[in-house]
């Protein structure tokens, strides 16, 4: 695979590479801020194109780098290959009606499931490292960190309490 990048005056930056099988992928970061991705199958003359906002491009990037993105909630897995292949997953959830009004302490999240709530996003405000006395409200988006198994337990035991 050969990656080549060119700066096109007035347009932006182009990244192009050819896969081992001969397909070509080209990405353009245009000056207007949108990102265009072209793919050209080997032996084909006309490329197909998709135009993305920076946000959409980042999500595509997440998928391509191997992070799992689920339908309603997102999760990112980080692997530290230097640390005995340590894998940590960060997952977001929306707080359902059932646990509205309860605190992190009430739910015994850490001792029951092993995961830690590292942030809560409520409307336009973010609370980083919420204290155990933090009270959940409906539609809070919580960011939870843990191992995959711990997160499964969290989904089973806390989210459907």
């Amino acid at each position, binding site marked *: 695979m050969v990656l080549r990048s060119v*700066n096109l*005056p007035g347009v932006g930056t182009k990244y192009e590479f050819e896969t081992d099988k001969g397909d070509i992928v080209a990405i353009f970061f245009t000056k207007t801020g949108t990102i265009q991705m072209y793919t050209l199958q080997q032996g084909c003359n006309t490329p197909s194109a998709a135009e993305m906002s920076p946000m959409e491009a980042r999500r595509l990037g997440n998928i391509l780098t191997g992070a799992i993105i689920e339908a309603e909630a997102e999760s990112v897995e980080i692997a530290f290959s230097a640390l005995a292949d340590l894998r940590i997953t960060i997952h977001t959830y929306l707080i359902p009606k059932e646990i509205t009004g309860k605190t992190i302490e009430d739910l015994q999240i850490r001792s029951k499931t092993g995961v830690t709530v590292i942030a809560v996003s409520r409307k336009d405000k973010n609370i980083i490292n919420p204290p155990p006395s933090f009270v959940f409200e409906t539609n809070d988006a919580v960011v939870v960190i843990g191992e995959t198994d711990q997160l499964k337990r969290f989904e089973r035991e806390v989210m459907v309490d």
Partner: protein
Amino acid sequence: MEGIVLALFLCLILALVTKYLSIPPIPFYIIGGVLLGKSGFALVTSDEISRFFAQMGLIFLLFFMGLGLKLERIAANRSAVLTSGIIDLNINMLIGFVAAYMFGFSIIESLVIASAFYISSTAMTITSLVENRKLMMREAETVIWLMVFEDLVLILFLAIISAGDQNPLLFLLKIAGVLAILYAVAHYGKEFLINLLDRSDELPILFTFGAVLTTASFSMYLGVPETMMVIALGAALATTDPDAFEQHARPFKDVFLVVFFVFFGITINLASGVNMVMILFISLLAVVSKFISGILTGIFIHESALAGIEIWGNTIGRGEFSIAIAALYGSPLVATTIAGMVIVTSIIGAFTAKYCTGMRKWMAAPWRRKSSYHSHSR
């Protein structure tokens, strides 16, 4: 003042409609101006303020162009820039000049028309390449470098035509002096400029506006073309942080340039014996002439005449630079001719940019069938 407000309001509506239909707005700003001006309903006349705004528009357009000129990058792509650029320059300048001269324009007027006839609209070309998703095509790169070459020719043209009857040696010395100052400031003040541009208060935008205005008025004071000097300012500042300068200059360019286009339309006088047939003829010739240069470029660069159709389709529209030339050096009749050419070519160009890939395929189909008898190697 009410005139500018009315003109800007019309442009706002035109911008909304053209963006919605994804067609180039420039011809419609000019048509809007013609309708508002003395050839239309005579609602708006140009005054001191509008002239200042329009001049700012022109100056910021050229400053912006300068920011995009990265000389070392052009030097690195010399061969790609030169071949296509020289074909494009010779064919279109020549056809434009001969046509204008045959219609009875003087040599200088014909030269002005030929330059406007030659130079495609960079804004329209780039927008259409992005919007029609053609960036990946090999021809797109050729077209983009063609625009850079045309910018370089424009600078040369501005220098030659504004030298006029000045002492050429003194003129060159003055230009070299201003250039040296600009590059020295950009070189020795690089750290300072980058720190300044990083600030989040009003300083970066104030500096950008001030630098452009100062350069323009200082050049006028010295008697060197301010148009050329603001391009040079852009090119010099591009060695520091061009993206930041673009970001700070864009609001000025966007607003003032619209005023420039609409007031260019307002000052057009259709009553002064304008020959519509001649304008239409020159406009259609401008389409044909880019076809010839496009096909030749296709043959020389991509070894395919069909590739030339793609190049042609995306470079037909004449726009901002043609109008700039008309506003700077055109007599009323020349300006009207160029305005007509911009309107016709940019509207035709918007369609060809969209459909030339299809046209190319349609033309390739019978050609392939025929040629397959002769060679099976492809």
